[in-house]
């Protein structure tokens, strides 16, 4: 089995309410150096060996991410 890790985040310009809340909370806790917090999703995917990158992207576009509001990054981790 091959293993991929997928990071889904909001596109630039899309307001991220949980991120903005965490950002304010950190600043309120005294971490004044915090400039921005973005919160996204982390997905682990195990697939049959030889699955093409195009097919993983298709899974992301169709279901795992919503291209209207989200970007994603796929990392190949290797053998599961």
């Amino acid at each position, binding site marked *: 089995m091959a293993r991929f890790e997928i990071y889904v985040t909001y596109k630039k310009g*899309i*307001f991220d*309410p*949980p991120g903005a*809340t965490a950002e304010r909370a950190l600043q309120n806790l005294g971490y004044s150096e915090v400039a921005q917090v973005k919160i996204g999703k982390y997905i682990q995917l195990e697939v049959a060996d030889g699955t093409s990158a195009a097919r993983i992207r298709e899974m992301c576009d169709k*279901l*795992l991410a*919503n291209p*209207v*509001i989200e970007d994603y990054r796929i990392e190949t981790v290797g053998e599961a």
Partner: protein
Amino acid sequence: MRFGVVIFPGSNCEQDVIHAVNHLGHEAGYIWHGDTDLSGFDAIVLPGGFAYGDYIRCGAVARFSPVMAEVVRFAEAGKPIIGICNGFQILAEAHLLPGALLRNVGLKFLCKTVSLRAEESICDWLDVPAGTVLRVPINHNEGNYICDAETLERLKANSQIVLRYCESDGSTAPGGSAPNGALDDIAGICNERGNVFGLMPHPERVVDPLSGGTDGAVFFTAIAKHVAEVAS
């Protein structure tokens, strides 16, 4: 006039819709999400709830239910579809309506009655003068409508914005009146043809004075009238 109400695993407003439609003198029947036969229905309702537990994103899994391919065909035939709350989220995920619904600003689940302003729109589901203020409850965690600037311009130019959140007198507060942070105070939009309508508020909950109001009736009566006109 017969309304079909789709039940997804996790829908929870389907009985309210059936009651509302019956109360207004129309027939209604349930459609299981695994069914693929929409014959015999004049309008389709995607009700509120938490289809598939809202996993991945609200509506993301529901849009691939077997019934949805038929719902898309129903829409393409120009027949009326309404998505209420979770139903709106499903229509957006299915790309039957543009944009998406994000988490509410403030991160609070919102459950209260709000004022909505009817806009000048091409929507088949609304037939009241522009500027009419309706009092309808909202009940959602992800109602913060968003779309890109180009889509917003198209929605405006084509009169696809059907409802905006407003103050009780119909005005817009400085900084906006949307309790959930929705772009341009958008509470409901329709597609370019006007037959597919999605809104976050729950009109089915206010058709009977017993439940605190009747402002929600206008959507169901408008579409019944529209269907009758098309048929004649």
